[in-house]
């Protein structure tokens, strides 16, 4: 099963430390998910905006979060079901 594209604006609790972003939890559809592990991080530019991507796990599932540093917004972009 390919990952489900969600692209939904979400609330994220993150620590910004020494030039790096560490997401700690996020709320999706009223449920709070704790970030147990950050599996991978990468960035890409979209126009002037820099989008930071985080593949995170809550211990059960994996999610892809993105942070738009220009608009200061967080999105849940994908959920890995497999």
């Amino acid at each position, binding site marked *: 099963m*390919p*990952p489900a594209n969600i692209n939904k604006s979400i609330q994220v609790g993150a620590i910004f430390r020494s030039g790096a972003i560490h997401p700690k939890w996020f709320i999706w559809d009223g449920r709070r998910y704790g970030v147990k*592990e950050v*599996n*991978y991080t*990468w*960035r*890409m530019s*979209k*126009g*002037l*905006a820099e989008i930071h*991507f985080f*593949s995170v*796990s809550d211990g059960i599932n*994996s999610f*892809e979060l993105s942070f738009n540093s220009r608009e200061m917004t967080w999105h849940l972009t994908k959920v*890995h079901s*497999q």
Partner: protein
Amino acid sequence: MNAFFAAVEQRVNPRLRGKPVAVGGGISKRTVVAAASYEAKALGVKTGMPSWEAKKICPGLIMVAGDMSKYVYTSKVLIKMFNNYTDLVEAFSIDEAFLDVTGTRARFGGEVKIARDIKKRIMERFGLTCTVGIGPNKLLAKLAGELRKPDGLVVIDFEDVPEMFERIPVSELCGVGRKIEGYLAEMGIRTCGELRRCPGRILVGRFGAALGESLYMMGQGKDLSPVVPGWREEEAKSMGHSYTLPKDTFDLDIVKNYLLHLSEQTGRRLRRHGCRGKTVHLYLRYSDFTGFSKQKKMEDYMDDGWDIYSSAVRILEGLDLRGKAVRLVGICLSSLIKNLDQISLLEDKESKKKVLRAIDEVNDRFGEFTVVRGSLLNTELHEKIGMVPFRSSLRR
């Protein structure tokens, strides 16, 4: 890097770890395997294999749609990391690089120490393994890098060459493809050792001066080519884009629509590099993998997608598909010149330049194809896998 795209996807999604994974254009049967995990390779899946064939060989194979943004970002971070050790870093492909540490190795404790350090840092930052080959030149370093995968570190010195070459197939040498391998086999040359013993005059007689001489040097384990860092790279000789259609088509209007999209991309790329091109190459690949290719030198240099498209359509005019469905469309501009921005006496040309500049500014700020021609709204190009304009595609 080892099974780069697949390894990245296994890091991103922990549930893929330890499983046979292939990265391609998605779950469509038309895609090919751009990279296979070691678990998939062990079951016979190879890079370049059509996904339906890979699935047939390995029914449990998990096909993952690749995401170039991850791979390009990772690759850029790696190159930056390598630059900590030397400024002579040549990006050979998205997942391979040559480092010339001749002048800096003493400062970092030697080449083996540098290799171990790099492997450790890549593992810490990305959780990925890589193989490092160390040699006195690029040929031997590349060969060393091929000998122990994954997660290897192999050193080849000149003194190792005579003995080592005896057991290495000639196809392991970088620059010896399937065709040359076949020609060499006809001459009874199957190992690097046999190539080593073959007199240069015989190789030159069979392959001509350039290739024959080059093969002779390879046989001796010699390679004089320098590590060419990005900042010393030659300018691109051509620029272009190609695209495999989601579905084969007999409809030339659909082909033209994709052609316009590709022409706009090419125009944008030319303008970003301050280039203009005069010769337009158009190519189509049919569903039976035969193709049509034609080029035409135009009257003027151009960097506007619409001009490029119009020229390509002129080439396309009169083409009879003869019942052949088109699978891939490609366009490329050559005869490039740089920084020619002469003010035109024709007002409309100057106006067009201003419009293009404005469109470029908007797209720079908000992302590619934020402003597009109306006719492109029906045509979406999905991101391609495995074809990265990393240095410059379709060059030289």
